[in-house]
């Protein structure tokens, strides 16, 4: 059982970094909705108390996964995706050219990838802000309803942006997978 280097890196980008980021963002949204509960805020006798350690680790890991996803996507996978194919080359190794080579698949690049490659960056930017407010300014979160509503809104937009980017990425990679590079053997042959 083998996998190529490009397939492995693409899997790490999408399934490890992107997948964890998307799930963690959803978890953070649930956490924020719970913290937005007026009863909970009234019961928080020490609003300036630092966030529990597990919440700090969770939010920092979420933000790190978001940045890892966009940076690995833009600087490792996107160059493989958009590489210019030499004349007569097998287009299977050049996903953008493969998609653009036929009118029925060109939209996956012209619409899908064009949207994904930019909208994705909104997610880690917004989630960085959300995590920073929750970890550093819990007192302001507890004191101001407008702060809570705004931060929740930005977290929801971050989730939406990550979902758009992740969804398009998965679909584009089904139509024209990023592949090639050194083969890595994961398991011995069963035969």
């Amino acid at each position, binding site marked *: 059982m083998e996998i190529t280097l490009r397939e492995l890196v693409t899997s790490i980008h999408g399934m490890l970094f992107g997948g964890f980021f998307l799930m963690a963002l959803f978890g953070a949204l649930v956490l924020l909705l719970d913290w937005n509960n007026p009863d909970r805020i009234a019961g928080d006798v020490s609003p300036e108390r630092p966030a529990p350690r597990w919440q700090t680790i969770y939010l920092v890991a979420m933000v790190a996964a978001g940045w890892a996803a966009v940076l690995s996507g833009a*600087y490792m996978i996107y160059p493989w995706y958009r590489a210019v194919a030499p004349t007569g080359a097998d287009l299977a190794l050049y996903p953008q050219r493969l998609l653009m080579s036929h009118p029925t698949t060109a939209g996956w690049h012209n619409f899908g990838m064009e949207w994904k490659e930019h909208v994705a*960056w909104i997610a880690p930017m*917004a989630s960085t802000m959300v995590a920073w407010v929750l970890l550093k300014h819990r*007192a*302001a979160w507890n*004191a101001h309803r*407008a702060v809570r509503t705004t931060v929740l809104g930005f977290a929801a937009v971050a989730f*939406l942006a990550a979902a758009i980017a992740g969804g398009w990425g998965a679909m584009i990679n089904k139509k024209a997978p990023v592949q090639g590079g050194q083969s890595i053997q994961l398991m011995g042959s069963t035969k």
Partner: protein
Amino acid sequence: MTEIRLVPQNPANGPVAAAVLSCAVGCFLLGVLAVAADGSKRLAATLNFYHPSGPLSGVTTVAIALWLVCWAVLATRWRNRSLAFGKLSAFAFLLLALGLLLTFPPFGDLFLGR
């Protein structure tokens, strides 16, 4: 012994306002730069910081740099201030929505007359 801590009733919202507004500005600039680079070959070439990734590298690097600079400046200026958060929030959401819309290719194409 029970610890008694004095907690301000209304902590300054300036640092949060700085974080929210700068994030919205960064997202808006990302959208503006994405559309501008798509419409101008000259700007696209200028933003081609890392050739294998093309103009995307410059678009995102510049937007992130401006976001962080904006955040640092506003955080310093608003450190101890309390602002009208409702109005600031509405403006921030407007910028964020525009940023999101500008990354949507058909919306960007409208601006470029395509």
